[in-house]
């Protein structure tokens, strides 16, 4: 018995229209800020007045006295339940200490947003100011003052280290680096610094909470509705069944709306106010308040290579700025260590990465956390190695990239992968080697990113007219991943994608899913939808077999009917079977792929399960840039992106991820940085000074998919898609700039000022 699909799906015809498309282009769709409830109050927060200080007094009486104020909430009004991902290090409302400028000291609910803001400012907070600790490299030194002096008492994941301010310490130790370095023809050392950057979704977050009795419903712009629900339950000390999270349309996230953020603050305000309360962030708050930004890093590399282009050894030391709280980002040291190795064959490795507390804004997952900066540094370092051994940078990569059968840096043995194919495709698309004006050049960079296996759930049910509904816990953040789930269900059931409606997001309805993070929706929830649809298929086949008096093995599902193989006129429609009233309902999660084994020794610390890359997504980017030597201004003229993300399920959606990811990567390469003052206050929390790329900045982007049908992966041999498009982008741009300038720019972003300064340095030394 096979399921056949004789008609091309809409997706195969290249015209897949996302089911939420019409409401988005007509303006009728509702995002969280568009939802209002009768009697709702408006929320505002009082944030910390100093990046690091001890609170000595909080007096809310003046704020409470302002007409129109319904409630003021501080730490005294909620349980003292610490929360956080791998370390429970944070309270909803600061009690004794504030550790960054976005720490929330109090919240206000009032009749209007203006009154709420006025009241928040009227709260009296007195402090003993402490020295700010913004230097995460200094904070990692033994004896440095502690951001969390009491943190050994916190609950935390056992695999994390607790050394001073170092939250996460990960090493990859393999072979004998000292001995191998002796055999190298050249040893190249490099040091790079990457500034922090932001997810910067165009929708500032919004949250609306309403209590009915002792249960609360929260409408929120989150990427991770179940984490939001669990966070509310944990911090307010109520059962998960008393918290219902609904996500209206979500206006982008890019990681910044991952994790539990402000849902419980607003729920606490709504309870205190006795009415619904709505919080909508200003753009400034969207920069300052989320405990989510891309981490600043300091990266040092040392690579030994032979003249024939063999990498004999790699040392690296990486410092990552965790900021004030851990959130979900405790795994970053290990992830960065893997990216310091990169998708290369390396027999001797000594990489050490430290994720360290500071009194800066917390860093957590932003699209491919740690990878763009680490890859930018490593890939520029690789070009320096190529120059040192006298090889073309592409040729060095050709000789050293992982391929089928390779042992990766942690001993993972790779199945069939398209790494080298992405390299060849990208250099062909960009026209590598062509004659260019002397102010233009082409740079190439390679990178990788794991697919994340996670449990995930979905239901598929059929309606009486033969249409269907997918009820999923997966969250749509704009990528189209949830929108494409009907393609997978339809294939199993011989139906059309547009036969299905999709119910998301309501945590009381859908089964658990980890959310729109980790490029995992199609990979995991797609598998769940296939499994759920297969249950429905089995039910349909059994019903049809009884009705047609034919063995189920001789039946197939085609064109909305169940019919006899070879005798299509012997058939019954799905509508007829579903219309009998018998519930046709499937549930599924599918079998979880296991991470590949490694052979790295137990001496490695900080192993959190990311030391091998399941179904690795492999990428080569190539950029052609033009550098204005007078001003340092860089323009990307053309861009080629070649990706192995396995088999592509929804091409228009996958292409869109690359276009958007590359543009985000170009922004990170050239213009996007959060700049802190000496105390760790953001200096540019607005879109005028934090520069996103615009339509007129961007190049045309050519995309090619190297479709390797990948076993032990997602549905149809797919891998993840969403995060890799930002990984090697800035490395490719950096290598192109260096070709023109004659030296690599060692600080990210490579702003006009930094490029110009590098040009000056080169000219000075030439004199």
């Amino acid at each position: 018995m096979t399921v056949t699909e004789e008609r091309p799906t809409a997706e195969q015809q290249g015209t897949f229209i996302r089911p939420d498309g019409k409401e988005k282009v007509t303006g009728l769709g509702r995002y969280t800020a568009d939802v209002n409830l009768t009697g709702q109050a408006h929320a505002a927060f009082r944030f910390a007045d100093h990046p690091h200080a001890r609170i000595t007094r909080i007096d809310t009486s003046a704020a409470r006295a302002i007409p129109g104020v319904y409630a003021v909430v501080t730490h005294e009004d909620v349980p003292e339940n610490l929360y956080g991902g791998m370390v429970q290090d944070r309270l909803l409302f600061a009690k004794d200490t504030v550790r960054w400028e976005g720490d929330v000291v109090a919240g206000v609910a009032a009749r209007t947003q203006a009154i709420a803001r006025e009241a928040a400012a009227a709260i009296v907070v007195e402090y003993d100011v402490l020295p700010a600790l913004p230097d995460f490299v200094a904070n990692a030194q033994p004896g440095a003052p502690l951001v969390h002096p009491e943190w050994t008492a916190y609950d935390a994941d056992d695999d994390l280290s607790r050394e001073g301010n170092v939250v996460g310490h990960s090493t990859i130790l393999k072979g004998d680096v000292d001995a191998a370095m002796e055999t190298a023809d050249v040893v190249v050392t490099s040091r790079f610094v990457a500034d922090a950057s932001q997810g910067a979704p165009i929708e500032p977050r919004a949250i609306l909470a309403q209590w009915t009795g002792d249960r609360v419903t929260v409408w929120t712009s989150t990427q991770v509705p179940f984490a939001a629900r669990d966070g509310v339950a944990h911090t307010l000390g109520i059962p998960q069944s008393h918290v219902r999270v609904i996500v209206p349309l979500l206006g982008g996230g890019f990681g910044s709306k991952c994790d539990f953020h402000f849902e419980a603050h607003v729920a606490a305000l709504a309870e205190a106010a006795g009415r619904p309360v709505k919080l909508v962030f200003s753009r400034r708050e969207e920069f300052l308040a989320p405990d989510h930004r891309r981490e600043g890093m300091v990266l040092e590399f040392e690579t030994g290579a032979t003249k024939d282009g063999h990498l004999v050894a790699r040392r690296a030391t990486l410092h990552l700025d965790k900021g004030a709280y851990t959130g979900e980002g405790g795994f970053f040291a290990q992830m960065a260590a893997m990216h310091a190795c990169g998708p290369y064959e390396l027999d001797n490795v000594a990489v050490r990465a430290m994720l360290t507390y500071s009194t800066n804004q917390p860093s957590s997952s932003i699209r491919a956390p740690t990878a763009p900066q680490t890859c930018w540094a490593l890939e520029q370092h690789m070009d320096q190695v190529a120059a040192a051994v006298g090889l073309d940078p592409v040729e060095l990569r050709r000789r050293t990239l992982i391929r089928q059968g390779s042992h990766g840096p942690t001993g993972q043995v790779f199945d069939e992968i398209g790494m080298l194919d992405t390299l060849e495709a990208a250099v062909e698309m960009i026209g590598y080697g062509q004659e260019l004006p002397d102010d233009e050049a082409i740079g190439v960079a390679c990178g990788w990113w794991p697919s994340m296996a996670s449990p995930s759930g979905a239901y598929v049910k059929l309606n009486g007219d033969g249409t269907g509904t997918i009820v999923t816990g997966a969250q749509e953040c704009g990528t189209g991943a949830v929108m494409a789930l009907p393609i997978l269900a339809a294939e199993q059931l011989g139906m059309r994608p547009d036969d299905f409606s999709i119910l998301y997001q309501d945590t009381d309805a859908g089964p658990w899913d980890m959310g729109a993070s980790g490029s995992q929706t199609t990979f995991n929830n797609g598998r769940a939808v296939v499994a759920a649809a297969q249950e429905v298929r089995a039910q349909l086949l059994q019903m049809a077999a009884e009705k047609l008096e034919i063995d189920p093995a001789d039946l197939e599902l085609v064109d909305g009917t169940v019919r006899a193989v070879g005798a299509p006129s012997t058939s019954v429609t799905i509508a007829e079977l579903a219309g009998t009233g018998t519930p046709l309902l499937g549930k599924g999660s599918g079998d979880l792929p296991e991470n590949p084994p490694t052979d790295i020794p137990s001496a490695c610390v900080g192993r959190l399960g990311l030391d091998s890359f399941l179904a690795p997504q492999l990428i080569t980017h190539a950029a052609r840039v033009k550098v204005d030597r007078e001003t340092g201004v860089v323009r990307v003229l053309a861009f080629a992106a070649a990706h192995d993300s396995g088999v592509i399920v929804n091409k228009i959606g996958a292409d869109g991820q690359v276009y958007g990811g590359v543009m985000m990567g170009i922004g990170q390469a050239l213009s996007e940085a959060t700049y802190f003052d000496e105390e760790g206050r953001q200096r540019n929390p607005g879109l005028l000074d934090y520069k996103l790329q615009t339509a007129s900045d961007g190049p045309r982007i050519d995309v090619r998919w190297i479709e390797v049908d990948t076993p032990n992966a997602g549905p149809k041999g797919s891998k993840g898609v969403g995060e890799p498009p930002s990984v090697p982008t800035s490395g490719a741009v950096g290598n192109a700039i260096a070709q023109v300038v004659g030296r690599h720019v060692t600080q990210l972003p490579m702003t006009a000022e930094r490029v110009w300064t590098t040009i000056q340095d080169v000219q000075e030394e030439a004199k």
Partner: protein
Amino acid sequence: MSIDITLTVNGVSHPLAVDPHASLLHTVRDQVGLTGSKEGCDDSECGACMMLIDGRPVNACSYLAVQADGAEVTTVEGLADGNDLTPLQRAFLEKGGVQCGFCTPGMLISATALLRDHPRPTEDQIRIALSGNLCRCTGYDGIVAAVAAAAEQG
């Protein structure tokens, strides 16, 4: 103090009393009840709030409601003819010009104004015309393709 004005939004007149400092965006969202136009920055940086005022695209977050007294205001809700999408709206969907959709209302308003003034725009004209509208999802590629495709269809 409030001021009496008449806002004509998508062809419907609304007599309103507004605060003198009320923005057109907040007035249309909160008083007229059309929430298609979005607030992304409240500072003319992102373009998500764009509306046409007498055919001219403006950032409604930075435009006072009283300035629009008597004017014809068009929001994203006013583009389609009932249930029928415009060629531009259809092209946005077919070319991958929509992901999260938060910038889409402003993009459609900018692009509508462009196509009225330049029915056959070059790619550079499209990119420059849309450079006041930030999009974080699409890399602009699908949006630029959609505007070009809509222009092709006339």
